[in-house]
């Protein structure tokens, strides 16, 4: 697997979150995702980037354009040095309809992408990686 391109973005303001959406959208269009798949990826990216801002105290979002024999994809890695998530399993469970949960949107975001990985430790920051392939 090769990384055709990558871009690191600061996530410090809500405008930055919008910027992450734009870049992910542009690269998704380039790779040739269908409109629905584009929307899924951008929406998932929005959830992650916002979490980095709201819960992680700010951080970075790295967008990558991946290529493997036979397919290309878009990956987003959101990293922060914030408080971390103590109970990842619970955070991944849905919390919208009940109004509880940290509103992290992680469980939902996971369903929107092909690959999802999260590394988080209380007091040691969080890194979430999502990937969608064409």
């Amino acid at each position, binding site marked *: 697997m090769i990384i055709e391109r990558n871009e690191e973005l600061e996530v410090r*303001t809500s405008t930055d*979150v*919008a910027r992450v959406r734009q870049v992910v959208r542009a690269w998704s269009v380039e790779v040739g995702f269908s409109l*629905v798949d584009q929307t899924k990826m951008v929406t998932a990216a*929005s959830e992650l980037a916002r979490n980095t801002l709201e819960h992680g105290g700010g951080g970075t979002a790295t967008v990558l354009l991946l290529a493997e024999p036979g397919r290309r994809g878009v990956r987003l890695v959101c990293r922060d040095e914030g408080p971390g998530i103590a109970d990842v399993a619970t955070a991944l469970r849905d919390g*919208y*309809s009940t109004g509880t949960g940290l509103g992290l949107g992680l469980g*939902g975001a996971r369903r*929107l992408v092909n690959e999802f990985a999260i590394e988080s430790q209380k007091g040691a920051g969080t890194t979430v990686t999502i990937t969608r392939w064409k």
Partner: protein
Amino acid sequence: MERIPILKMGQLLLVTIQVDMHDQLALTLQEDLTERISLTGAKGVLIDISSLEVVDSFIGRMLANIAGMARVLDAETVVVGMQPAVAITLVELGLSLPGVRTALNVERGMAFLHGAVDHRLGGPADDHRAE
């Protein structure tokens, strides 16, 4: 500061949300709308999201909040023009937008609001109140 314009049409308030709204702008809209409903005594709010290509949990919550606050102020809300890709994504996300009434387009949305408003006032919605 940039804000999303809110138009008044009789007893109704109309908002067209442009393409990519960042969170701060969304919060401002929420506040502005609540204020305008209160100020004008509007009975209906139509939010046109036909240009919105992404609705994530934040925007979803915003829409639900607006509908909730409007109801408290005795106004009905309808969200129109949701794009298919957005609807599909919302379903996958598990966001059901509870308490948010939707319609296919502005025309249908207006028809619904006029009906709802008439029901409340017992008369046509185009009846202008003295400001």
